[in-house]
């Protein structure tokens, strides 16, 4: 029986599968079918020769949710909120993205203002019900929503994190009047204060409920009618997975469902190789994603923004994207300086060398001019060398540079901007680059990894053996994971530990219950507690690990110490004499699923096999270098740069002054030699 990971991206649908009995693995890449993405999933299975009936588990990552949000291609939704606050999602935090740009536009709010209804009921910050819920008024809003034919609504009241009763009463009335309406409650979506994040996340849930219900039903039906009888799981933004039934109820957790698979792969690497701290990067045609795996776990953020001032306030992997990819376009600004991206040629018309009418010089063209790219793109198409040269020459003439220098400059500037994006991520999260190795995935990633690492002074790179289908491969190494939170605000010295213990116990039983729904046995469950804490008077919290077992006032110092350490790790400073407070508590309940076994220990006697050669340009010189077929290299082989290692779905470029070793699981470990 097969364990299958499938990642449905904007352009390609990737598959990676492991046979539980024979330990055989297969991978496949097919074009995504935009009109009905479940067709692409079936095609990928077909291309890998896997019958749906032979699948035990199918783990699925998808960008469907993100696309629906970004394109606003969900059916109109309504919002019911507190009188006086219908504009919370429109006003946001009021900040502008580019202070000096007078013509920028705000992203459209997710709910039209005319569809934001208000009720007079109001809770005070003390929890007191100062204007009671009025069932008649609520029924009026419910009737109007039904009348307008709206199929999904978000219910978001101020201070509902303290008491959910107004929201649940509104839900019951709406359900009674309009049984088919999808409903999202803010008190259920985010159990914390700060209305902008809670409302925005709830609205996103409401927008996705109809979209993802349809998507998953169609996918499940498609699979079932072809004989599929296994478990269907979805990848969550937090780096774990959940059953599809739950995913339909909590679709806001699917926004990073695509890239999260890649991070899971990096996490798997951190657990199966000697590298426990990994910067995971993924570079495709238009974007570059970076994230951190620290001590074997992907770093989580609580303030993700879908678009400018549209936050999703749930724990999500901290994945940062910049517009840099193979299709990024080189251009000259009005001061005569060379820039690359964020504009991308995409796949249509694509880089000049695709010969589909693109004339702009892209990163792919620069690589091709330098001889670093196989002229057939792994047999997919024949690239047009003249078109690339023309495009790059054109840029070079404006700079007074020869074409080859220009091409090297384009690569260098792209790699530099990717390196800076990683640096900002590391600073933001208080991490030191010297403690990390760089993992490089994605179709275009391994081609640039050495240059990015050099710009950041990171000497070690790992190119995982399945870099070209990283997200699909990561999908089958994941755990089921649920993040649960509860609001609890008090200075640590005043904390009611009996109450805290009850809250943690409640969260834990909820977490275990969710895991058992996906068939996880008690022995496979892990629960890790944490709390959002800050210094009294401070306004941003830091996630602090909390130990297991009964908490008591006697253990308060231990909690404070854990916070000081976490604050130091995040921000590089701590103030051990300052008082500390709790803002909310939470836990992560995870259930171990299955892991692909590690294989093929390195053999130091192994030798590189057959190679071909090609002329490749590095640092002002042409080199005649070896091209190795990656799939044929034995573990233990060492290759000295300059060289190219050609894998099925990606190509690794080793510039001079580097060497690489094939490690366990045939991962490529690259070392940058010291240079002056």
């Amino acid at each position, binding site marked *: 029986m097969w364990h299958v990971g499938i990642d449905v991206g904007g352009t390609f649908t990737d598959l990676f599968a492991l046979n539980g009995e024979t330990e055989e693995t297969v991978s496949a890449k097919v074009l995504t079918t935009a009109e009905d993405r479940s067709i692409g999933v079936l095609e990928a299975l077909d291309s890998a020769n896997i019958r749906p009936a032979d699948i035990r588990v199918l783990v699925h990552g998808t960008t469907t949710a993100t696309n629906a949000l970004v394109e606003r291609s969900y059916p109109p939704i309504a919002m019911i909120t507190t009188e006086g606050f219908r504009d919370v999602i429109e006003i946001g935090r009021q*900040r502008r993205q580019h202070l000096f740009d007078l013509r920028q536009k705000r992203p459209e709010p997710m709910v039209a203002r005319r569809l934001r209804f208000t009720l007079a009921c109001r809770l005070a910050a003390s929890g007191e019900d100062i204007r009671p819920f009025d069932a008649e008024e609520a029924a009026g809003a419910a009737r109007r929503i039904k009348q307008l034919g709206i199929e999904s609504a978000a219910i978001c009241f101020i201070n509902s994190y303290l008491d959910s009763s107004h929201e649940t009463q509104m839900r019951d009335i709406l359900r009674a009047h309009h049984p088919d309406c999808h409903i999202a409650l803010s008190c259920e979506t985010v159990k914390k204060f700060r209305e902008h994040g809670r409302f925005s996340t709830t609205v996103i849930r409401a927008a996705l409920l109809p979209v993802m219900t349809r998507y998953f039903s169609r996918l499940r039906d498609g699979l079932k009618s072809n004989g599929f009888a296994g478990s269907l799981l979805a990848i969550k933004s937090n780096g774990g997975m959940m059953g599809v039934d739950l995913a339909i109820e909590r679709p806001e957790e699917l926004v990073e469902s695509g890239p999260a698979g890649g991070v899971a792969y990096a996490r798997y690497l951190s657990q199966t190789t000697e590298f426990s701290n990994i910067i995971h990067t993924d570079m495709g045609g238009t974007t570059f994603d970076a994230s951190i795996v620290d001590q074997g776990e992907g770093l989580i953020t609580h303030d993700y923004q879908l678009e400018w001032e549209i936050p999703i306030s749930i724990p999500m992997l901290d994945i940062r994207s910049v517009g840099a990819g193979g299709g990024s376009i080189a251009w000259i600004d009005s001061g005569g300086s060379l820039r690359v991206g964020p504009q991308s040629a995409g796949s249509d018309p694509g880089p000049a060398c695709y010969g589909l009418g693109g004339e702009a010089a892209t990163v792919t063209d620069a690589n091709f001019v330098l001889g670093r790219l196989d002229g057939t793109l792994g047999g997919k198409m024949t690239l047009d060398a003249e078109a690339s040269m023309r495009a790059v020459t054109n840029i070079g003439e404006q700079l007074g540079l020869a074409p080859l220098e220009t091409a090297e400059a384009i690569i260098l500037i792209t790699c530099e901007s990717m390196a*800076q994006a990683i*640096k900002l991520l590391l600073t933001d999260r208080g991490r030191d680059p010297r403690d990390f190795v760089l993992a490089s995935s994605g179709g275009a990633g391994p081609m640039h990894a050495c240059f990015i690492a050099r710009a950041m002074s990171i000497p070690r790179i790992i190119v995982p053996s399945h870099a070209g289908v990283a997200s699909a491969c990561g999908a089958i190494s994941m755990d089921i994971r649920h993040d649960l939170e509860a609001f609890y605000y008090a200075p640590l010295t005043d904390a009611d530990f009996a109450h805290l213990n009850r809250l943690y116990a409640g969260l834990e039983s909820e977490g275990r219950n969710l895991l058992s729904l996906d068939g996880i046995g008690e022995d496979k469950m892990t629960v890790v507690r944490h709390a959002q804490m800050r210094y009294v008077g401070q306004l941003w919290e830091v996630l602090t690990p909390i130990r297991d077992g009964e908490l008591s006032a006697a253990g308060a110092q231990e909690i404070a110490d854990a916070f000081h350490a976490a604050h130091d790790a995040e921000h590089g400073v701590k103030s051990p004499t*300052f008082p500390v407070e709790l803002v909310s508590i939470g836990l992560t309940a995870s259930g171990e699923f299955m892991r692909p076994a590690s294989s093929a220990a390195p053999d130091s006697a192994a030798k590189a096999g057959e190679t071909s050669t090609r002329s490749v340009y590095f640092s002002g010189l042409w080199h005649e270098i070896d091209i190795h077929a990656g799939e044929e290299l034995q573990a233990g082989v060492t290759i000295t740069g300059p060289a190219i290692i050609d894998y099925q779905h990606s190509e690794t470029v080793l510039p001079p002054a580097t060497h690489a070793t094939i490690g366990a699981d045939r991962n490529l470990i690259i070392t940058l030699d010291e240079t002056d």
Partner: protein
Amino acid sequence: MAKPGPKPRKSAAGKSGNSLDPITFSVILNRFNTIADEMTLTMEKTAWTSIIALARDFSCAIYDAKARQICMMDALPVHTNSMHVVLREIARVFEGNIHDGDVIVCNHAYSGNTHVGDFVTACPIFHDGKHMFWSMTKGHQLDCGAFIPTSTPAAAQNVWQEGLQLPPIKFYEKGKRREDVVRMYLANMRWQEWLYGDFMAQLGSIWTGRRRLVELAETYGNDEMEKYVEGIFDYADMRMASEIRTMPDGDYDGVSWLDTDGQGGTNIEVRARVSIRDDKVHINFAGSAPQTPGANNSSFGVMQAAAGIPIMCAIDPSIPHNDGCLRHISAEAPEGSVCNAQYPASTALATIGPDDTMQDAVWKALAKAVPERVIGGNGRIPNVPFFSGTDSREAEDREWGCMFFNGATAGGASSSTDGWPLIMTSAGMGGLKILSVEMSEMLYPMRIDRQEINTDSMGHGKYHGGPGVNIQISPTSGAMECNLFGDGQLNPPFGVMGGTQGMGGGSYKESLTTGKRTYCSSKGRIIIAEDEVWVGESSGGGGYGIALSRDPELVLGSVLEGLLSVACAKRVYGVVIDAATMTVDPKKTKALRKKLRAAGVSRHVTVPNVPGAADWAQRRLRPGDEFLIDPQ
């Protein structure tokens, strides 16, 4: 195996004759930006007070050893367009006595700082024994030790009433903290722990900058570094020069008014002449009113910033805002005028009313030169108070204070886009953030009853200004003190090229028992009792172009979204909407627009051109209501 390729050529970038490698140039430019970003992140995430950690009233920047701005990112314009002024004074004061490990602070407006509330930390950065850079932050403090609990005391009449004055002074010398000096500073402040926390955040930020800049100097060496810094200036210089050459040479005049001086004087005039010559712009505030007796005067630093910000907004936003760009703009104002006060006049509110009034005069002048590159007026902030009081919700009473940005005003429209909702003053240009309602209610003894878009509050036009907001707050634990320090109640955001002015706006308190309203001018101190509610209404931004030429379907969209009323659509836009079907009646619209056009449309480049043109108060005042001007 290697065979030689074409020899790498060096291209001559820049006019200083340096031969620079264009690729290294891009790399270094990018790294400076990242370092300034890192400094900003460090400060935001570690600060203690809401004014810095949440509202983001701070800036970080990098300078070379000659105090020339190399890089600023994502910061408050009124800070970063003038931080070099105070840094030059710091460098002058300590000339010959600047060492590795020093941290120099300053909040003194007469040393080139913006106003007493802004606290500067600067550290010189050395590499191989040579002074190479400065890293610097400026953060708005919650308190500065004034006689009332606010760092923007509108009633201050001189520097002594403003609070503690810190001319450039070392808090660290050669890496050692001067504990006695830091204690003296804190002893003068309210909420000492919070302010100490903010100070630590400002230190963390400049030290992050130092660490990264030393790494950079190590990579390239001092000589190369200096060469490329010059190249970075030259690059911005060249782009800025060609940008300004596209603006027609000439002298252009603008005039605007400050509502009140905080002491009862009204409509204080500011005049600006913008002179464009080849690649230079000079702004002269000659002819402006004399300095006022209160705190509403500009410092030299703010005058420099206010003159430059509109110009910086009118250029390609991708030109780096470094010394090479700034050197094309110069400004002057007569000493002793409201634009450039003379010691010991108070300038505590310089970054607020005076800044925005000066900017409005410059924007209006610029509209005559390059109308397509300006926007309608941005709202000032007549209703962003500093609230304070005693919190008795817990067993132990606690003093509290908070600058409350949530009722901020909106931005003006451009020649191709509607205005940004809530830009919050031209000094900030949208760099500030508002506070969470739920968090405010938890932290402070207040209830926020409303925070919603204000219908018909904006200036109209082919593109309308962003809408303002209506905000309503009640104290929940005894009376609450409300210190207003803004402007723009009497003088609304201006309209451009036929666009109309914003509504103006302001605030009042209303008694829940009698219903009586007490209006307060944009400055002053009022007490909100427990049976009273404070209401702020902010203005939308100014409009751009003639409203009668706005697409009727867009007008309908704004009506459906509740931004405009049906009546306003008809009266101002000439769009007739059928109330039953909520659709545009094209026939009636055509006829009405023809009639309105015949009646005449504005031919002014900007409106209003008279002081005190806002009609918000007249529209809202009812019999029996009271209006207080600058109550103290």
